[in-house]
């Protein structure tokens, strides 16, 4: 972890990314205090240009775009972080198990991962979000499911590597129960790639959510993620650009800073890889 910290301090670009991200998280956390009600609006103030009173202008319902953007940070960042956590947990546990145990468990888990990997992911997302009661929980599950296969592959190969190491082999030979070895020795060694995959994946997940919102399948109104705001505002792009430009900017900015942070984390923890950000399936994010 110290390596990450050093890296962040040393690299000015990474530093900027971290500061921006922290500012966004802070804004999201404090939205309740600093911003007026994101749902309060009067049709009389519809599509008002940015002013002292509404620094980002108002949207088609006369709601303050600044405060909606701040609350949107909560939703977008929150969904991105949580959904990715779901992917990393599910994929991590299954990958560990498959890589360490091998055999039938490995085959079953990895073939399932292959299925999810091969399945066109945006279609899977659209399908899942259309099939069930839309809402945050569903979004989290859907986005989480789409990402797990990739994590599982990553962790599995790491777990296999660790299993072959002398001390794990020695522990096995000494009759130490395998769950204990898995937990004590294998899991901690897989933490770095997991952390890298988590940081990188959050950005992808936020983009995926925004794609879904663009199709009307993301966060449900009146709550608005950034993607939903951009989508609702795109029809006013020429007459009232502020409705979609500000949330769009925030979206890009947060993804950008997450990518910067992800780079730094990767460079610090995983010097072996040179992979940039290969992105995931469904590049339409």
């Amino acid at each position: 972890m110290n390596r990450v910290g050093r890296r962040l301090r040393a690299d000015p670009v990474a530093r900027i990314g971290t500061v921006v991200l922290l500012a966004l998280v802070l804004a999201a956390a404090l939205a309740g205090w600093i911003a007026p009600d994101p749902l309060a609006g009067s049709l009389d103030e519809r599509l008002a240009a940015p002013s002292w009173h509404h620094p980002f202008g108002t949207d088609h319902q006369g709601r303050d775009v600044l405060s909606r953007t701040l609350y949107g940070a909560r939703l977008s960042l929150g969904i991105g972080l949580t959904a990715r956590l779901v992917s990393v947990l599910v994929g991590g546990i299954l990958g560990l198990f498959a890589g360490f145990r091998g055999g039938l468990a490995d085959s079953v888990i990895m073939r399932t991962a292959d299925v999810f990997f091969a399945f066109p992911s945006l279609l899977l997302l659209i399908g899942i979000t259309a099939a069930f009661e839309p809402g945050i929980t569903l979004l989290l599950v859907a986005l989480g499911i789409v990402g797990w296969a990739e994590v599982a592959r990553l962790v599995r190969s790491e777990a296999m590597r660790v299993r072959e190491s002398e001390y794990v082999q020695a522990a096995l030979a000494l009759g130490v129960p395998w769950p204990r070895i898995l937990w004590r020795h294998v899991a901690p060694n897989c933490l770095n790639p997991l952390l890298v995959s988590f940081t990188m994946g959050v950005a992808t997940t936020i983009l995926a959510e925004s794609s879904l919102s663009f199709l009307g399948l993301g966060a449900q109104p009146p709550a608005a993620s950034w993607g939903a705001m951009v989508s609702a505002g795109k029809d006013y792009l020429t007459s009232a650009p502020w409705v979609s430009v500000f949330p769009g900017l925030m979206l890009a900015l947060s993804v950008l800073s997450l990518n910067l942070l992800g780079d730094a984390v990767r460079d610090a923890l995983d010097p072996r890889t040179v992979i940039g950000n290969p992105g995931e399936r469904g590049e339409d994010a």
Partner: protein
Amino acid sequence: MIGYATRRLLLLAPVLLGVAAVAFVLSYLLPGDPARALAGERYREEDLARIRHELKLDRPLPVQFGSFVGRLVRGDLGTSFATGRPVAQELAERFPRTLLLATASMGLATFLGIALGVAALIARGRFADRLSMLLALGGISTPVFVSAILLLWLFALRLRWVPPSGYVDLDPRTLILPAVTLGVRSAAVIARMTRASLLDVLGADYVRTSRAKGLREGAVVGRHALRNALVPVITLIGLDFGSYLSGSVLTESIFAWPGVGQYALQAILRRDFPAIQGTVLFLSVVFVLANLAVDLAYGWLDPRIRHRLAARRSA
């Protein structure tokens, strides 16, 4: 290598069966039913029942799944509920368009990305390097629908250099905007990869040797490092290409590009089960094959990897 490819192809069968099962379950989980989607806003219940019967939706689910798999085994993707045409034919019409867009995007991305990556590397540590890498990150961070709308607005609406939308049989220039939209994103990823990979290779011994011989930096990069550094870049290109082949729903609908992505979205919205299942299956095959091609190319380009592939085979 042939053995490896064959083994991978054999492994495709269970994966595709899984994909088929997920696609089947997912389409039946979708709320609303295909018969109602076909019936419109004013219909009689008897007619609805009749439509259901004709679509064989009134049979038990296991029977429906059985006949679905049976059809697949015979290579039949079924008939679209909405249009009454074979799904295979619908895909055969649309896939070449998606292929064209994917090829153009990746061509552009390859050229731009490698050029930018090399330029950044040569200027590494300097402002130009940081700026181009930040720009590349910006390319990755902008949602596709945002860049699509901005490009359309600027180049078609304001500057009027290109038509806003359409497919090449209307006007060849219609390819430009969607290709740039997707290409810029991939170019950004490729540029970062090229730079990182070059940096890696430049640390290697033989590069140091040629530098010691007094070759100029440009020559070092161009003559020796680039070829080796491109191996992971090509993998990346292959992966992105593979994913564009499954259609880019948003890009296609914004630019009215009649490819498989739009078709898939419509199939879902219309609850056109055979179209959903057929498209998903077809796209999965394309993706898996593209991945396989990438792996093989990887091994072919870099003999060292062949051994690793052999190792992975046992996994």
